[in-house]
């Protein structure tokens, strides 16, 4: 089945890289097809920006997303801008300390993670996006976590692989606990 994912945040949070890693994991390491389109324009720095990814076991024809089944947001502005697009019954993933999910839709499944704080605890705020996609991998089960790890290693700057893997695993483990109802 075709799954549409939108990742939104502000420029500098690594939104585009998150989408890139997700698509790369699906299409190179998980035997699926993936198409990524990035919102492109003056908003790419500082203001709300987004990456759109389609993952499908079959070849992808129509290249844009219309109603994402998964929405990942890392800023309040992105939440405000994109949350209405989420498909009925879709999965909403938010950065817990940056996004206040006001008027949260009743039909969506909502998961949140203090990813920025976790990234800071790991020593680099920059890896917030990797924590987020680790969390997303656990709660959506869309992509094989091993494929995601491979894509993380292949996509981050040389010398930062260990830090990024730790960030991924932090988010992933937190996600597994949330899903299974264990306390974090």
């Amino acid at each position, binding site marked *: 089945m075709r799954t549409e994912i939108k990742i939104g945040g502000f420029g500098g949070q690594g939104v585009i890289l998150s989408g890139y890693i997700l698509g790369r994991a699906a299409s190179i390491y998980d035997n699926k097809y993936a198409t990524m*389109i990035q919102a492109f324009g003056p908003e790419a720095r500082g203001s709300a920006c987004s990456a759109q990814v389609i993952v499908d076991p079959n070849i*992808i*024809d*129509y290249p844009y997303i219309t109603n994402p089944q998964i929405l990942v947001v890392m800023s309040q502005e992105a939440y405000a801008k994109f949350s209405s697009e989420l498909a009925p019954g879709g999965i909403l993933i938010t950065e817990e300390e940056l996004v206040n999910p006001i008027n949260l839709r009743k039909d969506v499944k909502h998961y949140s993670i203090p990813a920025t704080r976790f990234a800071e605890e790991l020593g680099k705020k920059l890896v917030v996006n990797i924590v987020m996609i680790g969390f997303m991998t656990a709660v959506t089960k869309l992509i094989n976590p091993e494929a995601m790890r491979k894509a993380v290693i292949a996509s981050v700057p040389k010398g930062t692989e260990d830090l990024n893997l730790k960030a991924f695993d932090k988010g992933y483990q937190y996600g597994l606990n949330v899903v299974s109802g264990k306390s974090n």
Partner: protein
Amino acid sequence: MKADPKAVLTGAHFLDGDHACSEGAIAAGCRFVAGYPITPSTEVVERIAERFPLIGGVFIQMEDEIASSIAIQGAVWAGKKAMTVTSGPGFSLMMEHIGLAAMTETPCVFVDVQRGGPSTGLPTQPAQGDMMQARWGSHGDYGIIALSPNSPQECFDLTIKAFNLSEQYRVPVLFMMDECVGHMTERVIIPPAEEINIFPRRFYEGPRDEYLPFKPDEDLVPKIVKAGDGYKIHVTGLTHDEKGYPVMTAAAQEKLIPRLVNKIKLNAEKIIEYKEDNIDDAEVVVVTYGITSRVAIPAINQARQEGIKVGHLRLIVVWPFPEKRITELAGRIKSFIVPELNQGQIFYEVERNAYGKAPVYLVPHAGGTVHNPKDIYNAIIKSLKGK
């Protein structure tokens, strides 16, 4: 001839169409690029600028598109394979030099990542508005080849094909991408270098004093040499004889210009490439190219699920146009549907070749995004009601 293994990034990549185009050019042997970066084509030259120093290529960021489109031709006559990269506004500026490349039979590739126009239009959004400009944009008569990819994989594969065709027919080849394909990231498989076929430049190897730079072979294409290798050559945009010297007479024009047209026209069946799906039983045929070929698929599938016999003809080589195939189909189908991200361009070419035997319906779009597949579906349904 095969690609240079030192330059080919064999493996599975997750690349956008612009970057895949760069890698295709590199695999094809391109080692000179001149360009004036413009959205949405900038990523092509960014990657070229990064990769060329590692493989012995030269990239120059020129002062404008006019300079870019002539610099590449100098490089070709010095023996390099060369391309320039642009979008609509730059493509317009390059028209004069596309004509020069056609007239001087300089093999080279022009990449146009199409965006909304006219003028500066929509820099960051797609359109397919330059398709007729690709065919007729420069003044005078000449044959041309243009290709239209619909995915990053094809941006790689077909850029190689563009270079190969330019060498085989000694003609500028226009690579007509669009913003959507250029900025879309997907899996791109780059094969091992030994699996990439390269059409070598048609260098002359006979005695020096017998060389005539514009004397055609049987397929109407002349042999080329490198400037500075000791052959007497003269390359001019003026009407010229087989020596390349200007001869401004009706007789010289009559000898040269029909050949420039015919070397593409008479070889068209060898150059033309299209892909057909469900054509055999089709009552309606949707004719597409570029990104629109993908956007049409949900519409076609929906109609077929409802029992409507819809086929799909997708142009991969747009120019030369598959005239004969359209005429054949027109004789036995009920209608053609042509969705394009413009107000009607290839539509007219389909209509012309249908000779009134089947009606042709345009599904226009002003650009800025792609069609809603529903509009294409509705056109399929309406066409069967004769509307």
